[in-house]
């Protein structure tokens, strides 16, 4: 027994050490130095302190959280705001999230922004306890809390556009969708992608797979299973896969490279963040401009007229879209812009449920 006990101890210790490594670099916390951009540049607005709480993964996930971080960095550079960012831990409870938001509110950070809908419950409680602080939550809506702004996105509209792109680029008439976790938010991506692909080619074959199931949404950070699933889809005839799976997208790109097929990134422009050898397979990315939402929200708060209620960042507001870096969609840009125009004009309604 003793030997086995030791073995388990080593395993437990090792897994924790790995968890620590994967925890990202929360020491990148920084505040605007006084020598940086001055608040005068922001048009005379009062200098504010922004508190931001990340979802699991934190700054450095090359996806969702990084997009929020980009908005924060832009706010610091353009508006001269100070900020403090805190990150989440795997397997934490609502009470932990509550404590985190409370720390920020107590520390005088106003507004306080939470990244990710899992903060919904905790934000409601903390917002009630700090009625004079403005709160915002990305990807969710908190009802009955006047000082909480919901920053949501029309992900289905952006996904529609990359669905159009996938169908136009597919030679086999077979495309794939890989979601990180089978949750309604990700089904919005699926619905848009499917509708977009079918708008180009009504009888196109679309393979749909999710990497994990709630509550254990590890599929957002599991590149190995991304590779495996993508291998299966490519082998079954797909030649373009939309990877709406956060950090697992890298695995899909690797599979695409090995099989010389194409893939589509998500949230941020993944052509930019991908390793050099993977860039050629990232034909476009579905952009979810969390950075735009975060920046716009901070800007309004700085100007003294905070955004309130539910803010939907859609195609019209450039809250979602597609990326063109790498030049692989240049030849179909006309069709993409046409589809975009129709959605913005309202003549095409994109479904948000599969």
């Amino acid at each position: 027994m003793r030997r086995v006990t030791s073995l388990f101890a080593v395993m437990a210790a090792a897994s924790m050490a790995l968890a620590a490594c994967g925890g990202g670099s929360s020491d990148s916390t920084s505040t605007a130095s006084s020598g940086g951009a001055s608040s005068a540049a922001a048009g005379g607005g009062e200098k504010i302190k922004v508190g931001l709480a990340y979802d699991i993964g934190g700054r450095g996930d090359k996806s969702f959280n990084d997009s929020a971080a980009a908005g924060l960095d832009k706010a610091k550079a353009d508006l001269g705001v100070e900020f403090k960012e805190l990150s989440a831990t795997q397997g934490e409870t609502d009470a932990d999230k509550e404590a985190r938001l409370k720390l920020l509110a107590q520390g005088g950070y106003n507004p306080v922004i939470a990244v990710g809908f899992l903060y919904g419950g905790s934000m409601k409680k903390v917002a009630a306890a700090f009625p004079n602080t403005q709160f915002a939550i990305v990807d969710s809506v908190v009802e009955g809390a006047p000082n909480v702004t919901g920053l949501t996105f029309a992900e289905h509209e952006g996904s529609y556009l990359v669905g159009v792109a996938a169908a136009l680029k597919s030679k086999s008439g077979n495309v794939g969708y890989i979601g990180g976790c089978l949750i309604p938010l990700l089904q919005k991506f699926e619905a848009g992608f499917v509708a977009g692909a079918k708008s180009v080619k009504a009888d196109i074959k679309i393979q749909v797979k999710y990497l994990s199931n709630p509550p254990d949404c590890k599929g957002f950070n599991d590149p190995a299973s991304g590779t495996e699933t993508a291998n299966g889809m490519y082998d079954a005839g797909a030649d373009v896969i939309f990877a709406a799976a956060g950090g697992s997208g890298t695995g899909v790109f690797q599979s695409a490279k090995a099989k010389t097929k194409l893939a589509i990134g998500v949230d941020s422009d993944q052509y930019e963040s991908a390793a050099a050898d993977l860039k050629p397979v990232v034909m476009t990315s579905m952009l979810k401009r969390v950075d735009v939402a975060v920046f716009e929200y901070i800007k309004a708060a700085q100007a003294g007229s905070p955004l309130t209620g539910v803010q939907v960042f859609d195609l019209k507001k450039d809250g979602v879209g597609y990326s063109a870096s790498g030049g692989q969609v240049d030849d179909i840009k006309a069709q993409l812009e046409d589809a975009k125009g129709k959605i913005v004009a309202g003549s095409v309604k994109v479904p948000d449920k599969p």
Partner: protein
Amino acid sequence: MSRFDPRRAGMALVAPAMAFVVAVALSSVVLVVAGHAPMTAFRSMFDFGVQPDNVVNIVNKASGYYLSALAVAIGFRMNLFNIGVDGQYRLAAMCAAVIGAAVALPGPLHILLIVVVAVIVGAIWAGIAGYLKVYRGVSEVISTIMLNYIGTALAAWMLTPAVFATLENNIVKTPDLPESGWFPGFATSGGEVYGFVVVSALVGVGYWFLLGRTRFGFDLRATGMSEPAAVASGVDVKKMVVASMLLSGGVAGLVGLPILLGASHSYGQDFPAGIGFTGIAIALLGRNHPIGIAFASVLWGFLDVSNQILDLEGIPKEIVTIMQGTIVLAVVVAYEVVRRWRVNSEQRRVAAQLGGPQAPAAPGPATTAGVA
């Protein structure tokens, strides 16, 4: 064996204390290398951890950790490794939440029903592994790990809007329990302490009584220490394996209930996962002893809660994970060191009493379980 021996008790405390010191020392080294002052970090963690609302959070967390570690410890004492506590408690919490939300009963009965459902589901899930071990010779380590995946998938299937779940602001969760199914807590200046803390403590007492004061407990420990000896003294080992897996799973079924009955009132995407694995570390640290586990749970809760302040002060909070890892590793090493030292000193004493000049023999690897 049950007589209190201050020498033994002293040595039982030396090992975890040593482990803690080693962990603090190693974390300090990492902090210094990363360019932070260790004392500042530890002081701010302590100051933060003793604030009333954080104390409440620590106690609440510890109540779940405690149950999880007890579930693991029941197996450990019998030389069984229930690695499946994680799957067991999540599936149990899921089923308890669904059934609890579907019925309307007067308060205490409602809570009792939820608790019973959770215990039964946890016991069944662990019992499968027990059955497979006894009748099919499948190692319980393998089967419980595999059952974690199956349990996760099963709970995920039940947690789709088409089956049992509802959708609330992008979060899928089971319907809320009616208020009669909420376990009343204790209001304090720092918020509400889960009432289920009391149940956790009672389970701890039950564990101590069952293992230390009953025939069943004796059989269980005997089987863990030496199976052939247990068989020779008439213990039905197969029955014991199944019984202890059922017991371990039943306790595991309770792990999610402090949160379910005290705070979330529903099972959803935001329900914490991983407490089952934390329980393994805590059981190791607490040396399978109900009081040791209680201290270890509170320590773990403290570390988990107070790391947030590090983030605010710009110190990487991952240092806490490193600390937890080193504590577990160091505690096992420390126990081995203390054990060898004790064997040596006993041999020396015996040798001195016999007046013989022979040097103490080097202690070989021990073959018995659960020394402490």
